[in-house]
């Protein structure tokens, strides 16, 4: 298992390198001048020059690329041109928000996907199944921000039962931040009202993102469970009188989970894309809204940092998922 993890990590290095290159090409080769953006129109030319030198923008593009890769390897994403803070620190500050949102959304999407998808598969051709298919195709067609806005309108404006923006009410942030995840920190601090408040704030954003992503999960779980329901070991288990529910969950779903997890890993990129829109819709202070906000300032180090960060996030999650997969599958585990 250890060698497996090691190999998997090593195998992802070229991919990370390519992703970094793609980001570099997009941000540096395309037009736009970050220095005037940083210093404003009133900056004297000599300050502009020195800033260009400081950012290394006066060097040949190859050298810039080398510096860029070297800096990222060192964990140095440069300093934000808007706040002058190290980008890595800003990303660290905002990452927990994104992580919390993606975790909750993923949980919702996975729950909907597994229950609805396997239920549909086990009732192939019945009403539930048709409903699941309509659900998944309809939800897929829904722009995530539109769905978010609608939920805001219904639960925040009409019924006024759920908060529509931010992560916490005033004075409702956890006293001590350990993980940055408000829910976890609230539990660690034993602040139950803070936990409740954090959960309330999570409901709409994570339902929005979770439901939209669940479309693919429902479809995926359904077809994979159908596939494993038609496999020989299911027929064999059935021939021994094993209960249908047991067959569905212990055999079909468990076996289907391996391909499902793999595809979920691929869909994680989609989840992050949706997270950008969701964070913007719900004023969620995560990396997605950070990216959108900094694009307005053309804060190059920040944009680059956020995009690189997303790329790394995707790679890390895909490695994790492969490891979980390997762990679930005895054929790889041994």
């Amino acid at each position: 298992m250890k060698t497996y993890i090691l190999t998997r990590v090593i195998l992802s290095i070229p991919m990370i390198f390519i992703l970094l290159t793609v980001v570099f090409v997009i941000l540096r080769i395309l037009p736009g001048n970050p220095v005037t953006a940083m210093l404003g129109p009133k900056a004297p030319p000599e300050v502009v020059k020195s800033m260009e030198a400081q950012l290394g923008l006066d060097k040949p593009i190859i050298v810039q690329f080398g510096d860029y890769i070297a800096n990222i390897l060192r964990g140095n994403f440069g300093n934000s041109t808007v706040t002058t803070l190290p980008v890595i620190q800003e990303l660290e500050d905002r990452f927990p928000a994104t992580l919390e949102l993606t975790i909750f959304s993923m949980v919702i999407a996975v729950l909907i996907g597994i229950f609805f998808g396997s239920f549909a598969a086990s009732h192939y051709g019945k009403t539930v199944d048709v409903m699941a298919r309509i659900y998944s195709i309809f939800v897929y067609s829904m722009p995530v921000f539109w769905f978010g806005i609608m939920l805001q309108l219904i639960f925040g404006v009409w019924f006024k039962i759920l908060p529509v923006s931010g992560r916490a009410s005033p004075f409702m942030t956890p006293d001590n931040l350990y993980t940055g995840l408000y829910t976890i920190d609230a539990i660690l601090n034993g602040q139950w009202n803070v936990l409740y408040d954090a959960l309330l704030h999570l409901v709409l954003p994570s339902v929005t993102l979770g439901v939209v992503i669940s479309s693919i999960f429902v479809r995926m779980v359904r077809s994979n469970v159908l596939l494993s329901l038609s496999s020989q070991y299911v027929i064999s288990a059935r021939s021994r009188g094993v209960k249908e529910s047991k067959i569905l969950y212990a055999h079909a779903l468990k076996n289907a989970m391996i391909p499902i997890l793999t595809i979920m890993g691929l869909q994680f990129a989609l989840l992050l894309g949706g997270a950008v829109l969701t964070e913007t819709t719900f004023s969620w202070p995560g990396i997605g809204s950070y990216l959108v906000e900094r694009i307005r300032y053309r804060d190059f180090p920040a944009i680059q940092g956020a995009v690189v960060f997303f790329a790394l996030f995707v790679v890390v999650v895909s490695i994790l998922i492969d490891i979980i997969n390997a762990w679930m599958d005895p054929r790889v585990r041994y």
Partner: protein
Amino acid sequence: MNLLEVRNLEIEYLTRDGNLKAVEGVSFSLGFHETLGLVGESGCGKSTIGLSLLRILPINARMKGRILYKEKDVVNLPDEEMRSVRGKEISMIFQDPMTSLDPIMRIKNQFFETFRAHFPKMEEDEMFKISSNVLKSIGIDPSRLENYPFEFSGGMRQRVMIALAIVLNPSLLIADEPTTSLDVVVQLQIMEVLKELKEKKDMSMILITHDLGLVAEIVDKVGIMYAGNLVEFGDVNSIYEKPLHPYTQLLLVSIPNVKLEDMELKYIKGNLPSLKSPPAGCKFHPRCPFAMDICTREDPPTFELNGRKVKCWLYKGEKDGS
């Protein structure tokens, strides 16, 4: 009372391109402690019959007719009651041992879930004891209960499958081409195991196969299937000695140690007819060396001769005891 009585069984598959008749008007019976061989080419409906006895056909299958197991009508039994029949009363082993075991579940748990399905209150110790004994009896070290299927060879897996099928002492074991996917040496070993079972256990068996020679030694009765029809049914010796249906005769030609003086054809021409648009009349007539005019027009009924059944116009008017 017979253990199993199948009457006018009809099975259809619904597909996008039309319906497909897999089994047509099949009737036969099986006594206690009796072994039946169901023989035919692949796609003739013999496996479908096997699945239908447990009512585990694919969901696009439609079943008509009666299957009486110990006087209970399998076709109309409530789902839960049917489930309690599976594995405990009737159980089945399948063609491909490689895929018939859940690849990510320990063997032990596949045994345990079988127990739990029927005896929810059984203690794990007891389950473990019984499974160990059964495995041992079939030539597998009980310590391997902890293993995953991929850690077994094909023949071993088929043994495990057999052990799983008989662990609850069913009265009827259906073996659906249990040796097809195994190599010859292992095939014989598995047949030995089945033979032993037949001798030691108070169990009836249905062996589904395309290889008449393989089962000849252990079966008591033989049913020959062709294109969804049971074309001949009788006890094994009389069929071997004097096959009635032309198809049976052709099948027997290919078995080296069976002598057949009158036959000249050494192989069966043509293919199984399409089940979606079968030929009119007798399904076998396009390939039949003795096809008559009537065969192309009318499907023959089943004629009874000396306690044997045959579905062929050649035997119209022949009387019992001739």
